[in-house]
């Protein structure tokens, strides 16, 4: 090879090598530029082969979210997974690389998911990722959901926020209204169980939720002792947390305790829990597990009060699911008086929860309890369909003496919903002289009086006057109006009250005037009355006054209109003070100076 040729060859080689190297370099640069300069949604480098082998083969998993994030099709794809686990997994895989903008789009699309269970899953995950990026924004989206969905999503937000930025989570929680603040606090305290107790307590105090913190601590201690459920029980009852806020934890403990100790736990519940609601709720937990066994346990109890309380709660719970079985068990209870009361409790509960079933099976209820049971059942039905209730009445005519009181309960319920309609029905279907008309109007008119007092009063006056000791319809209406606080109308109606009702009406008015601090008005009103009625009225005022505000009456003794009345007032004050000693001994001595001869001899029933 000549020198020139050698030079030519080496030059070529250099050119070839240089070109090749340049090509490689440009290829590398091109890929890097493509990935970095043109936005790629912060995704890690793609493995196309991997993406192709992706099981769903869905566009969402392989990052086409940048083209159509959270599109309907993609959400549908996710929920094509049958399994809930896979739905979550797919959501996480899809949303993890999403930007805030994409997550917002996903959120918007999630609101269109019709199926609630799917919507809940989707929104939980979306919101969690949104919170990780922009919690302040995430919390705003809670305004998009209903109050029914809000709490669990709020927990999710603060669960994430409490981990990613505790301080700002606390700051945000401070601004929430009380119930939501409590939820936020709960989420933070639960998720930040890495903090010391004092740190968590401090957070709770900042958020005005010390009780939430104490509850958490109590629950934790109870959980730690659960191998000895009785210890857990005592922890929860004796901590500084309102027991009614710990019903869930107490229920868990009671269940564990029952597993260990059997029905004996019922006696512990009864004797340890001071709050009757705790006693009742916990008893019901056991009754849910084995009502028959629980009731059998109570048969052997000697403490009558405990026996009654527990058996009552057990059968009432039992009645919710199987009233017939509960009735059968109760009939064999001893003593018979308690058996009878249990049957009544079951029947009433049955009528309240499954009225149709109770009516159909009314023969299973003891005769004594049938009428009231049916009253409850029919009233229940009347709440939504009074016509149906009335139509069904004939089906029970042979099971009771008569159905008049049942009809009354229907009308009572009906009139609470539609007082005018119910009243008109009574007027149209029962003649004036029919005693049942009066009975039914006793139910309807007081309720009508709340809506249209004048009409109610007119209708009352249009009925025949009551005889004997029955309260007049006019009085019943008058009483309702007086109790509503419409004293002006009350005073207008008073002169129209019929003679039989007069005394009762004035007594009622006296009571209302005293209760509202209008004793002056009471005395003014009394001035216009006939002597006998005035005396009666004043005495009622004084009597009520003694009860309502004895100190004030004592201070007003001098101003009472007559010495007889002063004496009567003093006598009442002295008697009242025996069992409610609000007046000092000196004051009592002073009161005695008002007594006239006939009242001086009278002894207090308490001396």
């Amino acid at each position, binding site marked *: 090879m000549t020198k020139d*040729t050698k030079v030519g060859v080496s030059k070529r080689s250099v050119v070839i090598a240089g*070109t*090749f190297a340049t*090509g490689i370099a*440009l*290829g590398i640069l091109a*890929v890097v530029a493509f990935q970095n300069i043109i936005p790629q949604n912060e995704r*890690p*480098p*793609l*493995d196309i*082969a*991997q993406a192709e082998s992706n*099981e*769903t083969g869905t566009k969402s998993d392989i990052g086409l979210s940048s083209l159509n994030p959270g599109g309907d099709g993609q959400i549908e794809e996710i929920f094509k997974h049958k*399994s*809930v*686990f896979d739905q*979550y*997994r797919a959501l996480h*895989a899809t*949303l993890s690389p999403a930007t805030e903008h994409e997550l917002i789009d996903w959120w918007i699309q999630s609101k269109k998911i019709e199926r609630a269970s799917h919507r809940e899953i989707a929104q939980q*995950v979306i919101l*969690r990722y949104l*919170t*990780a990026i922009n919690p302040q924004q995430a919390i705003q989206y809670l305004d998009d959901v209903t*109050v*029914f969905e809000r709490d669990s999503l709020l927990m999710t937000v603060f669960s*994430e926020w409490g981990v990613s930025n505790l301080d700002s989570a606390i700051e945000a929680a401070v601004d929430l*209204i*009380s*119930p939501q603040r409590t939820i936020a606090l709960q989420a933070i305290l*639960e998720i930040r169980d890495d903090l010391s107790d004092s740190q968590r307590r401090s957070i709770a105090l900042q958020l005005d939720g010390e*009780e939430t913190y104490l509850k958490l601590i109590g629950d934790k201690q109870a959980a730690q002792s*659960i191998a000895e459920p009785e210890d857990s029980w005592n922890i929860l009852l004796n901590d500084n947390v*309102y027991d009614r806020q710990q019903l869930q934890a107490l229920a*868990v403990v009671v269940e*564990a305790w029952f597993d260990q100790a059997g029905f004996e736990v019922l006696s512990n519940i009864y004797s340890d829990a001071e709050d009757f609601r705790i006693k009742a709720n916990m008893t019901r937990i056991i009754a*849910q597990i*084995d009502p028959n066994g629980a009731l059998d346990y109570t048969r052997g109890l000697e403490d*009558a009060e405990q026996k009654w309380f527990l058996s009552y709660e057990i059968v009432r719970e039992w009645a919710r*699911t*199987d009233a017939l079985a509960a009735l059968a068990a109760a009939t064999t209870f001893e003593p018979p*008086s308690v058996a*009878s009361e249990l049957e009544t409790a079951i029947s009433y509960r049955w009528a*309240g929860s499954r009225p149709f079933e109770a009516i159909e099976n009314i023969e299973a209820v003891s*005769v*004594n309890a*049938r*009428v009231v049971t049916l009253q409850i059942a029919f009233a229940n039905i009347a709440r939504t369909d009074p016509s149906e209730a009335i139509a069904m009445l004939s089906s029970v005519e042979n099971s009771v*003496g008569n159905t008049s*009181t049942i009809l009354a309960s229907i009308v009572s319920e009906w009139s609470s919903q539609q007082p005018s309609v119910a009243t008109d029905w009574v007027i149209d279907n029962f003649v004036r002289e029919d005693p049942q008309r009066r009975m039914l109007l006793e139910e309807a008119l007081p309720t009508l009086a709340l809506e249209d007092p004048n009409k109610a009063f007119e209708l009352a006056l249009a009925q025949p006057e009551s005889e004997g000791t029955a309260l007049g319809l006019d009085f019943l209406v008058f009483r309702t109006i007086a*109790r*509503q*606080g419409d004293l002006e109308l009350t005073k207008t109606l008073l002169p129209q009250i019929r003679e039989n009702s007069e005394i009762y009406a004035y007594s009622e008015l006296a009571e209302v005037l005293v209760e*509202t601090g209008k004793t002056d008005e009471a005395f003014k009103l009394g001035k216009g009355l006939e002597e006998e009625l005035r005396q009666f009225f004043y005495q009622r005022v004084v009597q009520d006054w003694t009860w309502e*505000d004895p100190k*004030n009456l004592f201070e007003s003794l001098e101003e009472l209109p007559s010495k007889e009345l002063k004496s009567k007032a003093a006598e009442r004050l002295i008697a009242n003070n025996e069992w409610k000693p*609000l007046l000092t001994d000196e004051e009592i001595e002073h009161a005695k100076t008002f007594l006239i001869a006939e009242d001086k001899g009278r002894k207090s029933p*308490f001396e």
Partner: protein
Amino acid sequence: MTIAKALPLSRSKRNLMIGIIFAVGIAIGVLAIVAIQSLASQGEQGKQSTARHGDEQSSSERHSDYPKRATGEVVEFQQIFSLESTAEQHKELYTILDHATEAELQKWWMKSQQIERDSHRKFAQQVIIGKLTTINPQEALRRCLDEVSMFQIGTCTRTVFREWSVLQLEEAVEAAISLQGPRQSVAIEAILDTRDDLYESQKFSIAKKLNAEEFYLKLVSEVKASEVIAEPEESWTTLLDDDVDDYLQTDTFIKVAEEWMKQIGFEVLSKIYGMREFRIDRDLVIAVARVDLAGALDYTENILEKYEQETLSSIIIREWARTDALTAVRVASAVEPASFAAMLEREAGRVWSRTKPTELIENIETLSFESRLMPLESAFSKIASQDPAKAITMLSSVEDFVGNTSTILNRIVDEWAKNQPDAATEWVLSNFAQEDPQRQSLLRGALRALALQDPDRAFEIAIEQPASNNRVLESNVIQEIVFYGDLEVAKKLLPRVRESSSKSLIYGDVARAMVDAGQTSEAMELGNDLAESSQQMYYWGVLNWWASQSPKNLYESLDSLSTGDLKSLAATQLIRANQNNPIFSDEQIKQMRNYLNTEDEALLDRLEN
């Protein structure tokens, strides 16, 4: 050929070659960088795609790709939970467990039990159980019931049934049937909540199978209520008018109330009152009022209807007093009118006395004079239940703040006697002379308690005390024995009860208990022990009770009553009782009328007309 003969390439050919070499270089460059990145991402991401296309490695081989240390298992969880956000932690766990076999899940489960931090352990176990359910739901359920803390069983069970119900609904329902009590309730709820794709008839059928129709109706109602929540009043009505016990829907009512409050403010409190659902009104009112207790109380000041005002304001002030009694009392005392303020103070004081009795006693002057007594009675009673001596000692500290302390002392002794009736009784006997009227009132409470522990002794002490105002203490003792003790003991002691204004009443109490125990003939005979002047009232009471408790039995016993007057009285009671509780037919009522004497017939006519 010699090199000399190698001719140079033409320009075009050279350019073509350069172009080709250049292109090859670019291609190789691109492929190289992609290959490098791909290898790197495989290493970082671990398992990314599923094996459903059956493409590559077995799960164990993939699992072996996950970083491990020599010490082993806990490391994976540590790595997962070291991620910065819970979102990433969740994602990681779901990804890792995605292709786990049952055997691997069991290992994961065992590892999870070693996680100390509660929040981490709970979440890890929830995901593991969820995945396990997709493979072996029975085993998943077993683990929930046997291997988690009692406090986690509910959440765990719910996770299982959520998953199980979508994969194998029938099996899930069968499994739920086998559960009991609260666990079954959780399962039912999970199934029906998750399978909201089913037709209503299908869901109802499931509920019926599980004897949970009420739960189904509750769910339906709550769905309806949530659909119309933009109009909270409509939601409210939906919940009221459904066939579900309102008590079971307390939480839902609370949510609707909170929403409604945004529209109508505290007026929602009146809506709650209007429900007339006394079992839950307290919870609802508190939930609403808690947002702004002062605002809620202000609202009640303007309510005209007295009972409504009292009910609502009582609940509010009691809740306030539970957490901050001093402020509650201060606020209560400032409301108008004074009678309203006094009522609120009493309510606040009552709660205060139960939650912090000593604090109340020490601050009693913050309550107005009229409102002090009852809370003090309650506070001292509470202290006495633990330490009666302390309660008695503290009594002097409040002497200047009430009229007198006699009723407070009564409560102390009553409470003391519940736990130590002997000691309480002895203390009274030792510290109060026989002539002291307070001795009587204190013994009344102490002997009631002693009567249940030692009825004979209680009775003996009672009859040693002089009668007071024609009342004798042994009446109270007998009464207590009748109501809470042994009827036979009461019957044995009864003849020794001294004459007093309450003797016939006590005989009446015993007689009623005898009627309850089925000893009706004896109860009627017992009246012979009374003076003739008391017998009429006695028989009236016994027959009235008999007619109300066992009317059928009395009806059947009419002929066996000893005199015509008694038969007439019995018939009267039966006819009157039937007016409120009509169990007798008209024919039977007519028969009863045949027993009436002239007097009773006239009385009935008057009453009926």
